């Protein structure tokens, strides 16, 4: 495997030899496996192997990038890239790549995640659990089992050289107890140890059962308890807005708000590329060590997420979140609160418990006005108890206002991720938020 690192370093040397100012090359040998199922049966199983080196170089602040496949045509590829740099346009804001020789943490990846002997067993375990919890074999389920193992080799002319191994496994299941009554559960991890597909199935089945015979929802303002899966979508939204790139293009409610109060005091939001996470990594795309960053501390906005270049523009240090062009969050966490889930429910006199959402879209990222569509279990809470299942509502509110309206966070947190909706992965609690606007079609 060090042969691959040597070949990756060779690419960097070639670029430098041609006259490039900076070169970074990152080779990923990825093995990805997925089993898709619906109607309680496996539809297709998929495997894809990728052998790719991403190469970026700069020459007189001109930034160009390419992709080499399986170390084919390296000389020609790097030469062509350098020629492109010569005719490209200077980026006066270019702040360079991460400099230095870093010691990275040792990866704790689990190689076995892509060698599961019979993935179907995991799927059927989840389906079985959903059926049992929902109390019916007629419960219709669908979802995916996904796993990945990436060997990553990075070399940079600015010093960083490193190897990483990144593993992930995810089971996502949606259960329908009726055409309009469903629940969604996920089980996410970086390792097979403790990975329990039945947990996802149970959650999906439990919500699906409770969600039976939903009534059309009623417009208004409600106190809302967000399930960790829904919270994961919200964290993705706020995490995206914390990227320095989002700030520069005004796709964020956090513009010019560093050091200011942007959330209630109960909120501490971190980006943590930890080994437990599906998004585990030890370095970013420049080779800067990936590390924990506190984005919001007790309601105060502490930092944007940076690569070296955006950090220079903002007169700070990289946070280890490159993206060579766009820095982004790896794995978001909200610090655990002090409430039990049951306590949280007992706080709600008349409110909603929303278990999942999708299709979040903005009118205006700068002001934060948006809507998103709750799906799966939507429950009316009266005097701390779930009294009705609802359907056909929309959450139409404001991203900044919502952060400030968080009044409770549970002790319990769960690693969640599903599709593009709760992404990036996160460690999400139940969240109690006051005064959330709900609308419905007329």
């Amino acid at each position, binding site marked *: 495997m060090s042969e691959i690192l040597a070949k990756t370093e060779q690419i960097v040397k070639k670029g430098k030899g041609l006259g490039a100012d900076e070169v970074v090359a990152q080779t990923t040998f990825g093995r990805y496996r997925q089993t898709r199922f619906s109607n309680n049966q*496996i539809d297709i199983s998929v495997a894809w192997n990728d052998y790719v080196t991403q190469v970026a170089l700069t020459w007189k602040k001109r930034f160009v990038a390419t992709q080499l496949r*399986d170390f084919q045509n390296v000389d020609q590829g790097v030469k062509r890239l350098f020629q492109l740099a010569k005719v490209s346009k200077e980026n006066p804001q270019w702040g360079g790549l991460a400099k230095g020789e870093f010691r990275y943490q040792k990866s704790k990846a689990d190689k076995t995640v892509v060698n599961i002997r019979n993935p179907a067993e995991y799927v059927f375990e989840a389906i079985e659990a959903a059926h049992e919890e929902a109390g019916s074999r007629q419960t219709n389920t669908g979802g995916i089992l996904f796993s990945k193992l990436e060997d990553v080799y990075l070399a940079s002319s600015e010093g960083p050289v490193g190897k990483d191994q990144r593993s992930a496994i995810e089971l996502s299941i949606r259960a329908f107890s009726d*055409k309009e009554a469903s629940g969604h559960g996920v089980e996410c991890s970086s390792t097979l140890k403790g990975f329990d597909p039945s947990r996802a199935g149970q959650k999906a089945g439990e919500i699906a059962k409770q969600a039976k015979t939903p009534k059309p929802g009623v417009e208004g303002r409600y106190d809302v308890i967000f399930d960790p899966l829904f919270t994961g979508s919200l964290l993705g939204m706020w995490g995206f807005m914390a990227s320095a790139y989002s700030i520069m*293009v*005004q796709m964020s409610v956090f513009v010019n708000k560093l050091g200011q109060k942007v959330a209630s005091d109960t909120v501490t939001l971190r980006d943590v590329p930890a080994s437990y996470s599906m998004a585990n990594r030890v370095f970013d795309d420049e080779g800067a060590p990936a590390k924990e960053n506190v984005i919001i501390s007790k309601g105060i906005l502490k930092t944007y997420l940076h690569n070296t270049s955006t950090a220079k523009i903002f007169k700070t240090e990289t946070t280890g979140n490159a993206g060579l*062009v766009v820095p982004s969050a790896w794995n978001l966490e909200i610090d655990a609160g002090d409430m039990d889930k049951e306590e949280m429910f007992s706080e709600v006199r008349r409110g909603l418990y929303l278990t999942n959402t999708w*299709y979040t879209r903005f009118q205006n*990222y700068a002001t934060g006005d948006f809507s998103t569509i709750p799906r799966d279990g939507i429950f009316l809470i009266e005097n701390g108890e779930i009294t009705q299942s609802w359907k056909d509502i929309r959450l139409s509110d404001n991203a900044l206002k919502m952060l400030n309206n968080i009044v409770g966070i549970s002790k319990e947190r769960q690693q969640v991720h599903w599709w593009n909706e709760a992404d990036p992965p996160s460690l999400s609690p139940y969240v109690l938020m006051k005064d959330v606007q709900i609308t419905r*079609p007329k």
Partner: protein
Amino acid sequence: MDKDIADFTLKYAESKKVDYAEVRAHSTEYEELAMKNGVLDAYAQMIDSGFCVRILAKGGLGFASTNRWTKEEARDIVDIACKYATTAKRKDSITFAEEKSVKISWKVNEKKKILNVTPETRIETLTDLDKELTSQGINVASRILQFGTNITEKYFVNTEGSVISSYVPRINAYNFITVVENGKPEQAYRQFGYAGGWEALTEWKMNEQTIKEAKVLQRVIKESKSIKPGKMDLICGPEVTGIAAHESCGHPMEADRISGREMSQAGRSFIYPGGPFWLKTKIGSPAVTIVDDPTVKNSYGYYEYDDEGIKARRRYLYKRGIINEFLHNRETAAKMNTRSNGSSRAISYDREAIVRMANTFVEPGDMTEEELLEDIKEGVYMRSFTEWNIDDKRFNQRYVGREAYWIENGELKHPVARPVIETTTQIFWTAVDAVSKKVEYDAATCGKGDPMQGVPVYMGGPSIRLREVYVK
């Protein structure tokens, strides 16, 4: 691309005595530029190339892909796909609708070849746009301007004897702008797409369109007024008609969604067996005919054969207000005892082909825009949208106007501040009583599949008039 390796892969798959196998190879040459606030952030060139095999055996489906063009790798992916197919243990076997085999080569022609366009010219496309945009006396406080070309060669072979080669060049651009006046921001994005050559730039009039957008935002900030919520007439311009056609007609008519295959991600459909809506039931007024057509020349969603080798044709989804024809691939067609209508698409060699739209639009009527307007006493003309979304059964939807005007006695008055229509598919399409003559398209990237596959599409139509709908 090494066609011999692809042929070898198919032969090796055949030797496994499978029920069906296909090999699909893609080689795509990308060139992409990203500019932010007048600064060229990055210029990327790359070639992505690889192949996949999909196998049907013992009633199950298996798929595997690689970007390493060797016989050893070819054997490996066939072995994996075969194992996956045979261990699926389905109660009901997957089958494919019978289709004729095809041997053909097709391509999209370029009047001005993309490959002949220099990097300098490509960069100028963005720098000129940025310069023009920022010299209008409007505070365009931030700009994302992106521009790209991709040329995809595909090679498809299957065990039924099909051999199809294709060559499709595409050009795309994406703009996101923020205009600030009096401290108030408004934002707009616009996507452009075309299958063909560099002549796209002339057809798009990108600079003119983007500047117009900035002017609209400025006017919205300065002059727009909120409306009093209530029932009123609404005219949707082609952009709004297009998104509604795509979201509340195209998506729910995808047969894989109807059969539940996308249930845990993109969701299901309000159309399902035994439900209130099915083929031949009413969903809209007789004024509404919505089609999906991959054969619109130079459209962003253009193709002649789909990724299962089926000839593309126009599909009438809603016909005069009646649910008429679902979008099918061979798998869903077999389930519903019909034929594929060529709706199977994959974005890359490493993705399974699934049921997709191509270009979805409302067919034109016979009225002029003026005629649509003339008998409206009070209402809203929503020319374009900002926020939009729809539930995962494709029934409860919402469109928020970006450029919108108050209509009074048949005349356009002041801009309206972000009017909202939040309604159901049935109410929306049933309320349409008139449709204008002129169809316009917008390019978009349609998201579906897991992993996500964003495919190029057009969405569009003429202006349409809705009577007595709730607007807030």
